[in-house]
């Protein structure tokens, strides 16, 4: 037996993934267990959970692979602290303390945390981990691989060729020319949190017009070979890739938006201007990604493309790549951000140890199971009603058709930032007032944030163009909602007529699929609004405790955990 544990952490999105004999046994983000959103530590709980799921102990592990090289990263940080002299004065003490006090010793920390000899802990490189996380679980034997994020050790963008179990680097773009950092800087400029608010910028962009292209041309230059350059004076690289715009950016684009202000796009010209900024950013992002993908096509001549890195979670850009870059198939792994590095590291370790490539990833349910017994016992103490159902899908459907919002927990929780039917909050896709209720009362988020539909794969094409595809099972692309269904799917159709569709194939998320089948029988439409089961600022629910806490604190109508329906009294 060969068991390899992959780890990402000490930046944001700590995670652990375990591959045993070439099978992805478990992959878990630490935030689900620690309840700390984007947990930046080491994935202590996730490691324990992965081993528990596999029924292994630390002694059974052949190696632990950390997803990047701390030494190369230190070199880049020191170089940029000096290169940004004297602007880096404020960041210097913090960066040095983080690198020398913590990150440099990560391999020793991991040996201690997992409980294995230091000699069995090793590293790989950040972008190679990303590449492996996408390609080695993709349905393709050969593919071009494009990884794009803020920054790894010293690379921001990389292009690989994947062939069987081998991954070969073709070309890379060095720091500081980074699409991830451009997006992060503008995310901060628009008043959102970096590494958290990027998807909000993407949602906002649909409400604006890309009319600031001339200004953005000063920020970033696109070249014919697919590369691009950021203009250094507008960014704060010395901040180490965490937040980074300089006062020059505000002089160019105008004052930044205050964080936490309520959005009023209809009544505020200023907010509309920020939406236009977001639209311009999205437009530039798409053009850069398209340029990179076209280069990948030219260099490899292959038909399939795998995307990874935080930027690969940009579902709107992914659609353009799938349509316009010349590839016939595109795949994005569900945890495309840094958490996914853990999976890539484990897979690289497994391949190196001689394991075969794992089967293509069909299902993201790689976390821990939910316990009905635990939920029942806790519900009694919390004074919640619990009812065992003989036909849970029928009952959920009945509640949804009656205008209800219902939580659904079933099986192992998902890998990645999307709720895919294991820990989901469901509603009917037609009623706009339900969307408003979800946005304002339950999720307490910006009014422009769209909700996504989930549909049975077999009928997806009737309602959405470009669905199903390799991108739709994990909600990593958007599709056009067919004109004739835009009213009946109003709650899940964004202002631009698109939706971030999830398609459910046979055997995936069985309880959720049963609910969709029942909706099909009852309403004729096998579609539900599917959003993540979490409150504002919280990670998605993992265990029964989190699920019942959610039910207690939020105005949802019911919560289904396997075959038990829980409701608040009264």
């Amino acid at each position, binding site marked *: 037996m060969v068991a390899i544990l992959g780890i990402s952490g000490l930046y944001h999105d700590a995670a652990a993934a375990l591959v045993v004999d070439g099978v992805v046994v478990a992959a878990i983000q630490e935030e689900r267990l620690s*309840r700390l*959103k984007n947990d930046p530590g080491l994935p202590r709980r996730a490691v324990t959970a992965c081993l528990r799921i596999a029924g292994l102990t630390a002694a059974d592990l052949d190696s632990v692979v950390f997803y990047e090289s701390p030494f190369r990263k230190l070199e880049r940080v020191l170089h940029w602290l000096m290169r940004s*002299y004297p602007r880096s004065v404020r960041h210097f*003490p913090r960066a040095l303390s983080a690198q020398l006090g913590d990150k440099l010793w990560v391999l020793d920390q991991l040996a201690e945390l997992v409980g294995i000899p230091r000699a069995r802990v090793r590293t790989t490189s950040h972008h190679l981990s990303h590449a492996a996380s996408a390609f080695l679980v993709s349905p393709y034997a050969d593919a071009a691989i494009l990884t794009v994020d803020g920054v790894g050790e*010293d690379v921001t963008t990389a292009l690989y060729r994947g062939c069987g179990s081998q991954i070969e680097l073709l070309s890379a*773009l*060095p720091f500081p020319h980074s699409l991830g950092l451009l997006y992060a800087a503008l995310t901060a400029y628009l008043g959102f949190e970096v590494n958290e608010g990027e998807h909000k910028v993407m949602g906002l962009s649909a409400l604006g017009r890309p009319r600031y292209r001339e200004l953005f041309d000063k920020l970033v230059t696109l070249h014919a070979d697919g*590369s691009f350059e950021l203009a250094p004076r507008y960014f704060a690289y010395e901040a180490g890739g965490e937040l980074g715009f300089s006062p020059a950016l505000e002089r160019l684009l105008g004052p930044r938006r205050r964080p936490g202000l309520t959005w009023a796009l209809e009544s505020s010209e200023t907010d509309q201007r920020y939406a236009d900024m977001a639209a311009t950013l999205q437009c530039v992002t798409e053009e850069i990604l398209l340029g990179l993908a076209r280069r990948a096509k030219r260099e490899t001549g292959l038909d399939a493309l795998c995307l990874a890195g935080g930027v690969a979670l940009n579902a709107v850009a992914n659609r353009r790549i799938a349509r316009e870059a010349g590839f016939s198939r595109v795949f994005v792994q569900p945890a495309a951000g840094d958490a996914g590095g853990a999976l890539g590291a484990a897979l690289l370790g497994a391949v190196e140890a001689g394991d075969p490539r794992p089967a293509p990833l069909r299902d993201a349910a790689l976390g821990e199971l939910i316990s009905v017994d635990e939920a029942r016992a*806790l519900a009694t103490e919390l004074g919640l009603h619990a009812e065992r159902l003989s036909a849970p899908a029928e009952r959920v459907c009945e509640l949804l058709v009656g205008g209800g919002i219902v939580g659904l927990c079933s099986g192992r929780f998902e890998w990645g930032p999307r709720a895919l039917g294991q820990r989901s909050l469901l509603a009917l896709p037609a009623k706009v007032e339900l969307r408003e209720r979800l946005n304002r009362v339950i999720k307490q988020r910006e009014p422009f944030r769209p909700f996504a539909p989930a549909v049975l794969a077999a009928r997806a094409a009737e309602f959405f163009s470009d669905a199903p595809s390799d991108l739709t099972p994990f909600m990593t692309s958007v599709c056009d909602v067919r004109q004739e269904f835009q009213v009946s799917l109003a709650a899940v159709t964004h202002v631009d007529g698109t939706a971030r569709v999830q398609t459910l194939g046979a055997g995936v998320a069985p309880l959720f699929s049963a609910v969709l089948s029942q909706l099909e029988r009852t309403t004729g439409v096998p579609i539900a609004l599917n959003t993540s089961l979490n409150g504002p600022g919280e990670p998605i629910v993992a265990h029964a405790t989190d699920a019942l*806490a959610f039910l207690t604190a939020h105005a949802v109508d019911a919560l289904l955990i396997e075959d038990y329906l829980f409701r608040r009294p009264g």
Partner: protein
Amino acid sequence: MAAPTPATSTDPRWIRVQAWLGGRWSFGNPRRAARLLYGFARTEEQSQLELRQAARACTDDRRRARYLRHALDESRHAQAFAEHAQELARTAGDLGFPRPSASSESLYERLGELRFLAFVHAGERRGRIEFETYARLLRRRGANTLASLFESLVQDERQHEAYSARLLEELAGVAGARSAVRWARRWEAWRGFRRRGRALAGALYGATMLLVYVALAPFGLSVRLLSQPTRGFSRDP
């Protein structure tokens, strides 16, 4: 749970004096008041995280439910503080704050249930005394909205103080509970001392690093002059 300000004494009179003086300073100016309330929001957020973890780890369903309810209260408090902080920041013309976030110390795992609970109890007591003091101070100043906020929170803190005392007695008996609370107060004071020590060490580290940074000036300037700007694709970056 974790008291809003670092503890240096557990004597209620001293806590009141500290809170009164601190409150007078902070609530005299909307910018300072906003920062104080935002700090409370983060503290409450951290408390809810610790209590959630306790609810997950505890094996007794009744106590798990108590921790979970308490966590939900803390979450509500964090939100209330954050909203008021945001409003005050805007009044002061500041940028405002992001959603309060906190890190976890995994106290339940580290301390064990009895000591964790004693720590919760001590923190709630301290928080209740502080909030009562702030409420009185704010009423006297005519800041009735904020005073009402603290008054409503005092009710919750009283409940938390009472339930944690009950659970402590159930777990360890009267004498054991007293001993655990004494330990928690000592530990809380020690943490306060260490926090101040860390702040001092941080300031010294910052000053030392500034000197190092200045000393690195020739090196920094030569890197700026000599290193070539990187652009375009490379096979071996």
